[in-house]
């Protein structure tokens, strides 16, 4: 152990030390001794000197022990930076590298290995491991103890630092380069971070910042591809290469996934490197443009989801990126991932807000269509019920008193959801009120409504089911006509519900449809129930539908209690809510009840 360390360069000043040393266990120990001497002159207390000596020994031992065959021929490098508040040591190795755990675990008592990293992490304040293709760099930082009160500071102020370095141009140059590099990286990252909150389009943002990245890491080209929101393919977002790369790469499993360096990075979720020993494959889309390059394809993730792949390279195969530069590329890419992810989140959020707004509009429309108060006739009560499902549909009911004598009951269901359905319900209602002269002939009324609405409905590929019932209290008869709507139910206390009204085509299906009508007598205590299919389609927790038979049974139970129209509606609503339990309604539910009173 008496060999003197044999650095290729040995720059020693009070603040900065750089040593290149052979990849050898013996030299590892010598280099840590040399560093101790340097730090003792800073000065540092004995505890800190011992901690640094041990940390550097452990890091250098690992670098020597796990060096690759080619790496063994190359010198390892130790750099020590003494800053006002901390010491930073960087040890560059030529191993295959390892994944640094957040906190290395202490091995079992019997284990004779695995304590080096634990010691480093325990003694340091901060440890990073930057991985590159040809080299890696362990960065260890430890705070300097605060100087005792009244004692001169351990590190001389900046002015003095300069004066102490006059005469050692090499050291000054190295420090200047180091500072310039740090400054460039930091300022670019700060600019990048502040730009994250700007509402710029992602593509433009990416292209701008990738050019900055090329300058910082001394790269010649980049290609950025982003995964489509469904994660099925990688699409070109931005590239500095002149050739045409504007095509998508499929992320599905096929042979091309093993050829394209970008797809390999996406599939393996790891950096994929290319250089002279592992060149871009012939079928790789990038190989036509930058065949003799070295660099890496880095997959970008945001919360574990693949966002894209950033590929960065140099137009030569013999100048690999340094570990620090690789770290900058990875950091930029990860920042970008967050930005892209945020942009997508904002877009989805906006879409959700728009949808919520649309539903609100539709819901308002829907409510405005329903009559605030239903007209009443001597001897008859009328009541209605409407319950909106999560997505607003186009159910609609109305009751219109005619000439102070008869009453037109209307129930309709516009196919579809949201604003379009609500709009058509509005149009239907205004048409209905435009021809009140037809109320006593519901079949003819439907025929007219179909003709009037057909072109609009047909163009929108929508249709409306409807049922019109004209009740004449004088004759105690009613006329019913239906357009694709479920028949109404008629019953009386102690009776049994019967279905009345033919169905026919819905409005908007056939231009020349003629709707017929049926005439029925109303008994002294008759009840009519007009409803939409959302009522019979109501499902319970066991996915069973209420169905027409279920509706009939429940209606009869209510009617048997001689409920009036309002009570019937109230009881029916309770029955529906009880039946469906906590299951959300999938369709609107509407019904209209008429009762002889």
């Amino acid at each position: 152990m008496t060999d003197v360390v044999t650095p290729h360069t040995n720059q020693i000043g009070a603040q900065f030390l750089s040593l290149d040393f052979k990849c050898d266990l013996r030299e590892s120990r010598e280099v840590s001794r040399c560093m101790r001497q340097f730090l003792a002159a800073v000065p540092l207390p004995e505890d800190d000197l011992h901690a640094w000596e041990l940390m550097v020994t452990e890091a250098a031992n690992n670098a020597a022990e796990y060096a690759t065959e080619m790496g063994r021929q190359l010198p390892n490098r130790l750099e020590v930076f003494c800053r006002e508040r901390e010491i930073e040591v960087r040890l560059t190795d030529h191993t295959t590298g390892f994944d640094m755990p957040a906190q290395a675990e202490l091995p079992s008592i019997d284990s004779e290995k695995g304590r080096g990293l634990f010691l480093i992490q325990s003694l340091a304040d901060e440890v990073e491991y930057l991985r590159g293709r040809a080299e890696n760099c362990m960065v260890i930082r430890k705070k300097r103890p605060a100087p005792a009160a009244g004692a001169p500071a351990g590190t001389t102020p900046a002015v003095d630092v300069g004066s102490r370095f006059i005469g050692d141009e090499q050291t000054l140059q190295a420090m200047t380069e180091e500072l310039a590099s740090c400054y460039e990286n930091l300022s670019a990252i700060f600019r990048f971070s502040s730009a994250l909150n700007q509402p710029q389009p992602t593509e433009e943002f990416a292209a701008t910042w990738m050019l900055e990245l090329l300058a910082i890491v001394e790269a010649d080209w980049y290609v950025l591809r982003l995964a489509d929101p469904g994660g099925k393919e990688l699409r070109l977002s931005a590239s500095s290469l002149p050739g045409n790369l504007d095509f998508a790469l499929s992320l599905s499993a096929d042979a091309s996934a093993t050829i394209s360096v970008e797809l390999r990075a996406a599939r393996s979720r790891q950096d994929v490197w290319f250089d002279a020993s592992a060149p871009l494959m012939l079928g790789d889309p990038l190989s036509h443009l930058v065949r003799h390059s070295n660099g890496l394809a880095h997959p970008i993730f945001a919360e574990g989801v693949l966002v894209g792949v950033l590929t960065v390279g140099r137009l030569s195969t013999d100048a690999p990126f340094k570990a620090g530069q690789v770290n900058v590329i990875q950091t930029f890419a990860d920042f970008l991932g967050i930005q892209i992810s945020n942009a997508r989140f904002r877009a989805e959020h906006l879409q959700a807000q728009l949808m919520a707004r649309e539903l609100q509009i539709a819901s308002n429309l829907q409510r405005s269509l329903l009559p605030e108060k239903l007209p009443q006739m001597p001897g008859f009560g009328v009541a209605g019920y409407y319950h909106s499902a999560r997505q607003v549909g186009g159910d609609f009911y109305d009751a219109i008193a005619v000439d102070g004598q008869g009453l037109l009951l209307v129930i309709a269901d516009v196919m579809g959801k949201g604003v379009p359905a609500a709009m058509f319900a509005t149009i239907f209602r205004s048409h209905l009120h435009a021809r009140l002269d037809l109320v006593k002939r519901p079949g003819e009324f439907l025929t007219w409504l179909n003709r009037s609405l057909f072109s609009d409905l047909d163009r929108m590929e929508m249709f409306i089911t409807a049922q019109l019932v004209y009740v004449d209290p004088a004759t105690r008869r009613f006329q019913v006509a239906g357009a694709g709507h479920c028949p109404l139910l008629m019953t009386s206390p102690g009776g049994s519900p019967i279905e009345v009204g033919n169905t026919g085509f819905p409005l908007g299906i056939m231009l020349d449809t003629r709707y017929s009508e049926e005439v029925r007598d109303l008994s002294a205590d008759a009840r009519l129930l007009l409803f939409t299919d959302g009522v019979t389609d109501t499902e319970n927790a066991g996915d069973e539908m209420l169905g027409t038979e279920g509706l009939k049974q429940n209606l009869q139970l209510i009617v048997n209690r001689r409920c009036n129209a309002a009570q019937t509606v109230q009881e029916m609503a309770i029955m529906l809510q009880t039946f469906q339990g906590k299951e959300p309604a999938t369709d609107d539910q509407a019904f209209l009840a008429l009762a002889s009173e």
Partner: protein
Amino acid sequence: MKTRTEDNTLFITDFTELNTTNAMWLQDLVRQSLVQAHKIIELDLSKVRFLDSNGISALISIHKTMCKRGGKIRLFGPTPAVSQILQLLSLNEVFEIINP
């Protein structure tokens, strides 16, 4: 490094570091010096100012060897630097430590 035997104890003294380079020497020395009568190996750490993870590995290896023989390892007078490392690695309860 020097060795001497008193009763059933093999004493190893006169070293200032236990690191990657001399950890193997120590293990070789123990292999060569250990005889059936030895039940205890006592390492004099009173002058040792540097102990790294390879030195620790050597201590654990000797500890395991002695346990198999029904014996033990004893560390004499570790310096504060060495005590700190043993404590950090929770080994201060594994080895018998004598603080004079």
